[in-house]
């Protein structure tokens, strides 16, 4: 099996599983309990919080554990707006956000918020000038993702943060789920107020993530109850998951330099192997070393539905994705690719190949070879006109 759908989720690292199993067996106390077993679980959670904070160059007090990226994004956006009460009515995001941001904005639009959806260029990148131009007197929040989950393009977060820093009333939220612990991004340095992360994209467990909330910023909770996470996120802490997240971060810290170097090289070799042989083929998003996450690659084969491509590759033991996993069951062209100016046909016929820490050079080579074999066959069947 060759698993190349690591942007959907990653296989858990065995050491993460070991840590979690051990925690489940030995540290089962409720961190809120007053007795020693509770205190021990609490100390474990706090140590994990420190590990997470270190990765983001922030203080542990700025980290709030959630059930994952989706909750972190919802909490960042709704938690901010619920605190604002009539002060401003305008929010800004992009057309290429992950559904856990995009759909929240859609929901808020229905509730009466004025929403600006920023366009992107053909590489999927938003222009910092446009962000700044969209800000007006009523703007209170801007959400921009760091790395696009479908095509891997990196957004100019540092530059946007610098521009937005001039408007103290405007908060800046970044969905960093696809980049966290892989590409460096320090919220304080980039003037980010809120940043969402998730464990299962870095070989950690599903069901755990976190939101960075800049010091002195106060949000309205989505979930109220026992007052855990300083009242921002009630619910008994998922202690094994939190430990798993911290372990995954530590492992990512050790592996990421090599991972980035390798995936950059393999992606380049992959594209060279395919070069000119599978026309019509479109490489989506930025593929320059500085403009994209090297571990994500999106290809469009106009005329072949992505679902067909996914299954054809599956027959060969290769697992890739059509668009992002969350929207891949629907038969609609990718909103993200459409925003980048792709036609319906191009947007329907796209697959995403995404690497993880376990990916090898041979796997990428084999995937390219299989594409070289399978695509012409499918193009013939589907009567795709060779470009």
């Amino acid at each position: 099996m060759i698993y190349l759908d690591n942007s959907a989720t990653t296989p858990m690292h065995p050491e993460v599983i070991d840590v979690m199993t051990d925690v489940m067996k030995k540290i089962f106390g409720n961190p809120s309990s007053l007795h020693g077993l509770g205190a021990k679980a609490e100390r474990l959670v706090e140590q994990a919080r420190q590990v997470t904070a270190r990765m983001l160059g922030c203080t542990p007090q700025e980290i709030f554990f959630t059930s994952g990226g989706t909750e972190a994004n919802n909490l960042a956006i709704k938690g901010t707006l619920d605190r604002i009460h009539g002060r401003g009515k305008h929010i800004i995001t992009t057309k290429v956000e992950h559904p856990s941001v995009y759909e929240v904005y859609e929901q808020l639009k229905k509730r009466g918020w004025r929403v600006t959806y920023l366009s992107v260029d053909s590489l999927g990148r938003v222009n910092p000038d446009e962000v700044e131009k969209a800000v007006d007197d009523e703007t209170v929040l801007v959400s921009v993702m760091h790395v696009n989950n479908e095509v891997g393009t990196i957004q100019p977060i540092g530059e946007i943060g610098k521009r937005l820093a001039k408007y103290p009333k405007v908060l800046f939220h970044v969905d960093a789920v696809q980049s966290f612990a892989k590409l460096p991004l320090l919220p304080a340095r980039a003037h980010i107020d809120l940043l969402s992360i998730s464990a299962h994209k870095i070989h950690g467990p599903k069901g755990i993530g976190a939101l960075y909330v800049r010091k002195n910023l106060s949000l309205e909770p989505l979930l109220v109850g026992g007052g855990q996470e300083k009242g921002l996120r009630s619910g008994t802490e998922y202690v094994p998951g939190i430990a798993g997240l911290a372990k995954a971060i530590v492992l990512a810290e050790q592996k990421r330099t090599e991972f980035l170097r390798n995936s950059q090289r393999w992606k380049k070799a992959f594209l060279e192997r395919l070069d000119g042989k599978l026309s019509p083929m479109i490489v989506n998003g930025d593929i320059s070393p500085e403009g994209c996450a090297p571990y994500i690659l999106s290809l469009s084969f106009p005329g072949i539905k992505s679902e067909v491509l996914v299954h054809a590759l599956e027959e060969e033991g290769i697992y890739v994705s059509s668009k992002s996993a969350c929207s891949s069951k629907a038969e609609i062209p990718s909103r993200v690719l459409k925003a980048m100016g792709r036609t319906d046909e191009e947007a329907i016929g796209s697959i995403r190949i995404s690497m993880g820490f376990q990916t090898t050079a041979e796997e990428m080579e084999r995937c390219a070879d299989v594409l070289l074999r399978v695509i012409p066959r499918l193009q013939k069947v589907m009567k795709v006109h060779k470009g």
Partner: protein
Amino acid sequence: MKSNLILLRYGELALKGKNKSEFEDRLVQNIRQKLSGFPGVAVSKAHGRIFVELNDQEMDPIIRELSEVFGLVGFSPAIRIRSELGEIQKAALELVEQSSGIRTFKVISKRADKKFPIGSQELNHRVGGYILSRCPKVKVDVHHPDLSVHVEVRGTYSYVYGNDIPGPGGLPVGSSGRVMLLLSGGIDSPVAGYMALKRGVELQAIHFHSYPFTSERAKQKVIDLAQILTRFGGRIRLYVVPFTEIQTEINKHCYESYSITVMRRMMFRISEELAKRNQALALVTGESLGQVASQTLESMNAINEVVRIPVLRPLIGMDKHEIMTVAKKIGTYETSILPYEDCCTVFLPKAPKTKPDREVAAKQEARLELERLIQEAVEGTEVIDLEPGQKEDEFSYF
């Protein structure tokens, strides 16, 4: 051209002779200790200055560390170049170009090496003229410049640096002898410790622990607070005094309204004994005048009279608001506000005496077996040594 070293200034003016060199040596030692986690960084002392050579390390984290070293008055990221006019001009121009938002500047040259062919005045003109001709947006203002471009010519090398980043001031930790801080879990006492450290003391801390009336979490909180103080104070030894029996005895034998006064008197006696045994010359408390019942002047009299050792109260001139501001700045606030009972709150009487009488306190206390209780508390004290830097993790999972 990136800054490749940091120039540090310290308050040497008030010191002379042997004091001065001791002060400097202590300061350099403290800086080295503080930066020991940055491989390649070198600290050296020359011409009444301390230099930190970055050797490719990032500037910001090092500045952040240095801002916690008492005795430093200011820092300047500096560029070292060979003592040639062209190089000096180029470095100065870059400094101006990299300083965003400045409109005016002035050049202040110093020529320590008189072999350098250009005099200071002349150098000011040549460097200033060079900047003006290439950077038309800025003007010279010799009285209130936005940026002062400092040029120091010293032998083979010269230094170019800009405005001063203010340091924490104070005296190097360890230059003024040892004190004992009475550390509760509250907001005030860690700030008192910080203020004492600023005057150059070496800090040890005492905490009174009344398990099971106060929890393990309350003790952990105090350990965490002491750990935070090691950022400013280096190594800190924490004494955890078993206080349960004393509190129960007080509760049993004394008027409720005098329990706080008697408790504080016991704490002071134990602290004095620990100070004596560990060569500390003063106690430090987080008391400020008139905040709560135990901090009226009458109360201080009734409490203070049981010891002969000096009791320093660095917060005496501060408002609650000011104390909280410092607590937030030094990073103890978030820990201090965690809601665990401490020994001062657990037996809190409903109506404590705000103006306790010394003689009544003494009479009340006479019902206790003072000597035995104090002796046992001191003997049973647990010693915890806290080292600066990452504290040792309890769990080895990650």
